């Protein structure tokens, strides 16, 4: 009896520690907030442009992920080529890569001296780094794998006989993709989009490395929080609360899939 109780305690105590690890910081954020002053803090001249930029870049990221990620997910899901597992592994790399390393890699590719960036500058006169476009590049780089893997998972679950059946009805592969596959995996696309958007919203390391931290131009909400913590901690807390709220809303939207 005694040993059973101790064995239970051996499980329960670490479990409560784990919950505390996750909850204490969030509770602290709520306790330390100057609730009455939140509207004033959010009106801080760096907060509004940062939120606006985050909203703009993350929605652009989402559109780009959907446009290029959905076809990639479909090809990965249906390809039987020997190289497909390797390609899938390649897609996962940015998922485990430290974001700062991603930022350095983006600089090496699209920086003024970069492999592609130099040509872009010479031929078209475009310079990507330290612009809002660079923010989108960084966000797409980190968010796309989340989108592709979630959507590919949903597409794997789609009965492949639908493809053949649509073909016998005269549908081209493109029409089948557009009118059969995409609508049938819509829930998977929605959860992939939510994951990708949340990842893009929180993106910090790759953005600050590749796009810099210019208020109103490349300073996204997470960067603004970091900067404001020095000058105006209550503004940082207010902005953090806004982002926490957004995360909770996304979690709520995914509830049907993950919280059972």
């Amino acid at each position: 009896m005694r040993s059973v109780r101790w064995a239970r305690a051996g499980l329960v105590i670490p479990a409560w520690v784990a919950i505390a690890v996750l909850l204490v910081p969030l509770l602290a954020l709520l306790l330390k907030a100057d609730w009455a002053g939140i509207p004033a803090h959010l009106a801080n001249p760096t907060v509004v442009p940062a939120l606006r930029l985050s909203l703009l870049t993350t929605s652009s990221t989402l559109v780009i992920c959907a446009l290029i990620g959905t076809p990639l997910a479909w090809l990965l899901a249906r390809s039987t080529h020997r190289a497909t597992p390797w390609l899938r592994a390649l897609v996962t790399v940015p998922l485990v890569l430290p974001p700062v390393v991603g930022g350095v890699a983006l600089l090496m590719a699209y920086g003024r001296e970069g492999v592609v960036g130099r040509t872009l500058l010479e031929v078209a006169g475009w310079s990507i780094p330290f612009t809002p476009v660079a923010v989108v590049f960084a966000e797409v780089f980190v968010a796309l794998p989340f989108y592709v893997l979630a959507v590919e998972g949903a597409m794997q679950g789609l009965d492949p006989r639908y493809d053949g059946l649509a073909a016998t009805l005269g549908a081209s592969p493109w029409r089948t993709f557009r009118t059969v596959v995409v609508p049938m995996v819509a829930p998977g696309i929605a959860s992939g989009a939510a994951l990708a958007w949340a990842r893009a919203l929180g993106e910090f390391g790759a953005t600050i490395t590749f796009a810099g931290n210019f208020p109103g131009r490349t300073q996204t909400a997470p960067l603004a929080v970091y900067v404001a913590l020095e000058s105006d901690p209550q503004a940082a807390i207010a902005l953090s609360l806004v982002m926490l709220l957004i995360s909770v809303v996304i979690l709520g939207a995914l509830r049907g899939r993950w919280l059972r």
Partner: protein
Amino acid sequence: MAALSLQTHVAGLQADVRLARGTLQLGVELSAHPGQIVAVLGPNGSGKTTLLHTLAGLIRLQHGQIAVAGSVWDSPADNVWMSPEQRRTGLVVADHLLFPHLSVIDNVGFGPRSRGVPKAEARARAGVELDAVGLGEHLEARPGELSSGQAQRVALARALATAPSLLLLDEPLSALDPTTRAQTRADLGIRLRAFSGVTILVTHDPLDALSLADRLVFIEAGELVQEGTPQEVIARPRDAYVAQVVGLNFLRGQRVGDQQVDVGGTIVVAPDIPAGGLGGPVCVTIPPSAVALYRTRPDGSPRNTWPVTVKDIQRLGPTARVILDGPFILAAEVTAGAVADLRVGVGQELWATVKATEVSVYPA
């Protein structure tokens, strides 16, 4: 990819399907006139579905040729291959595979839309097809709201809405429960009679084949073992599987006398053995209902009397099928009452008799 297209004078279907796929070696010749319904029967893994998918263009031929309604669809030797969307086929599978996100009318209109028909016209066409299968009232329903029998009729309407030259039915009734199945089989029969193209019906249910098809084709391990009208096949099955499908005991033997066949050392007597050389191979069929069972050797016994051991008993409604092990395996169909009277149990020894006039013998 082959771009060449080839015309032929073939009006219906003429196919010589040869390909290897995994352990399956498929080599089947198949032909049919427009309006004809051909049932393809065979055990699992015999290549039925592969054959169907080859006709649909989902699998490519390695040798041979497929020609339908005046054009060659697949001919490796001529470097001709038409993709599934270029062929005029309709495919119906056991679990209907209706598009769950489209209404019934949009499911049926999907084919015409894919072939470039304007939306309003496609919907009109779909409406006509749905009326033809008695579902004109369910146009805006989602597939999930339909019963299994209705869903299968929608699947048929969808397959026919593109006016195919070749309709492919892959076990169209096997997922339905027995009651729905009988009704849907009847509906299917009515709709198919009005279809002017070739229908290939893959099934393992003899009732589907016998009630719907004009011609039966049996394949086993990728090869054609018998074909003919239902009447021909019932009268003279040439293979144990075919006999099992039509419900007959099947034996092979040698003709050893005017009325005698040697089946593995046992003499089976039959009055009407077609003329032919002695020692020639023959097929012997015995209807299970012609096998009578006795606890003791019957008096003045008929010439076909054999000691047997009960191997298995299967109840089929009011009758029972008793599998007997004697000189050869024999199935007997007896009433449930007879089972009780004889107190038949597995392992029991009985006497089986068959009237000579019930035994059918024909050259192998």
